[in-house]
């Protein structure tokens, strides 16, 4: 029981990172129907931004978090403006290949600029372990879970309560109709990218503190896993993405704890394929039928 609870604690920390990433995928896919392959690399950008502002300008945790979120949001908006917007009317495969290109560019550009070696992330908050009935919880784990939950609630408020959030929902249902009623579609899409990328940036600094190690290729696998999480929860749904993220985190940690850690990636992909085949709308998603 003790080890089980311990694994659940670990799974929740990992799951909240996946959830933060999955939210970005889900929002972007919901609004322009694009799997933003570069999303995982924006998370890497966030981690590196935090690394540099902490090491060079000695930012504290909160300011570093904000810096990572701002830089990530900016790069998300720029990527959308330069790479995806000109292709808005092109076939979806063209946009998808561009997204792969952007992801490739960010990974290799970063490797070129800072080297491809892993770097140890500065300990901006000293790690303290609390023991409760034999279960170890570190302050970092509590911080990750807390910040992830706060950001998710904020996001849900923005989407449900603000004017911009309403515009986002309108554009994701029907961009043409949204434009007809006076919504600035381009601005709304930029805003969506900014929100999603800011969450990815936050996930980047949190994973840096959790694993103490960052490198230019760190976004690749978590990016795909977060996409699996978004699909699992139902793409376009915020609670779904959060739920999917936690579920993938738990699944991965469970496989690790029963000694099958070598196969944990394969299991995530297998879950993805099964979900895509049998429950393509995800757990919280709406099923849309193809019409002639």
């Amino acid at each position, binding site marked *: 029981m003790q080890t089980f609870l311990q694994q659940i604690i670990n799974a929740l920390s990992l799951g909240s990172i996946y959830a933060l990433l999955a939210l970005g995928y889900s929002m972007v896919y919901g609004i322009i*129907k*694009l*799997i933003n392959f570069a999303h995982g690399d924006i998370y890497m950008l966030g981690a590196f931004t935090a690394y540099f502002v902490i090491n060079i300008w000695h930012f504290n945790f909160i300011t570093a978090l904000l810096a990572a979120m701002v830089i990530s949001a900016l790069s998300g908006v720029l990527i959308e403006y330069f*790479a995806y917007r*000109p*292709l808005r009317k*092109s*076939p*979806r*495969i*063209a*946009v*998808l*290949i*561009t997204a*792969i*290109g*952007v992801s*490739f*560019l960010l*990974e*290799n*550009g970063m*490797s*070129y600029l800072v080297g*491809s070696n892993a770097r140890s992330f500065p300990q901006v908050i000293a790690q303290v372990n609390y023991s409760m009935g034999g279960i170890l919880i570190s302050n970092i784990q509590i911080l990750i879970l807390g910040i992830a939950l706060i950001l998710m609630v904020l996001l849900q408020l923005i989407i449900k309560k603000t004017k911009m959030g309403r515009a986002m929902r309108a554009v994701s249902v029907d961009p043409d109709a949204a434009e007809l009623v006076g919504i600035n579609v381009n601005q709304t899409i930029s805003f969506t990218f900014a929100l999603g990328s800011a969450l990815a940036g936050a996930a980047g600094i949190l994973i840096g503190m959790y694993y103490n190690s960052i490198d230019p290729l760190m976004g*690749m696998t978590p990016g*795909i896993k977060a*996409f699996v999480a978004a*699909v699992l929860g139902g793409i376009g749904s915020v609670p779904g993405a959060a739920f999917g993220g936690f579920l993938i985190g738990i699944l991965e940690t469970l496989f690790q704890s029963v000694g099958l850690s*070598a*196969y944990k*990636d*394969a299991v995530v*992909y*297998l879950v*993805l*394929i099964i979900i*895509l*085949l049998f429950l*393509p709308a995800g757990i919280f998603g709406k099923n849309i039928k193809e019409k*002639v």
Partner: protein
Amino acid sequence: MKANWKYILSWLIMIIAGFYLINILIMVGVIDSFIENMLVMIGINIILATGLNLIIGFSGQFSLGHAGFMAIGAYTTAIITQHFDSELGFIISLIVGIVLASIIALIVGTATFIRLKGDYLAIATLGVAEIIRNIINNLKITGGSAGMFNIPPLSSWPTVYIMVCLTTIVLLNFIRSRNGRAIKAVREDELAAEAMGINTTKWKVEAFILGGATAAIAGSMQAAYVQTISPSNFGIMESISILVIVVLGGVGSMTGTFLAAIVLGILDTVLQNFGALRMVIYAIALILIMLFKPSGLLGNWEFSFKKIIPTNKKERD
């Protein structure tokens, strides 16, 4: 058939002339082992990219798992030729690799093509390739993450040259057959094709199997030529670099794929000293092509002797 002998003969002459040209250039010393290595890599990339072009360009299904099939071919050859170190062993391993890849493509294809398309299909095939890689990474017989070394050097440039010609002939004939017209109809409009009585899933899966089988051939060639393989050779990056060749040349143009493989192969060799910058240039090229010329270098234009040599019908006119 009678009207076609001219073109068949022209192609045959071109193939044989190409073979002797390379042979003479090697004997004279113009092609040293460095350039020969480049030519072999170009050949392997042509086999891979033409197979992927069949799937993406002609049947219109977006697969991101080509490296997985390549891994199957490479590891089959590596394992079998380590026990049967002979030409016969290589041929057996080639056939076993093709059969294995075809079976997996059949299973994956029938499972996914019925329900998925577009970007979901891309993610699913990517997942399949990663599962294959993950399994190879953990098996004892494949040497785990360290990979396999000292694979007998049973493939050389003539083998690769012959395989390039053979796979291209098979693929082009498939595209121009009744089956090929069926998959092109599926690509243009799946619903309309289905309404015309075309079994869309069947043809899509057939194109996928053929593409997977050619990828296995390329994998076998690579394993027997480079002599060392490891699971990291067959990751997402490999699938993407094959995709870059297809997209650069023109989705739906086999001539374009040949051209792009040659251009990128030369560029690769020239940029070898730049390390990480090479991949940056690759990425920027991919984005710029998509932004300014999404149809690739040649679009869907094909080289054909029919356009150069006038047909009898035209002469009569």
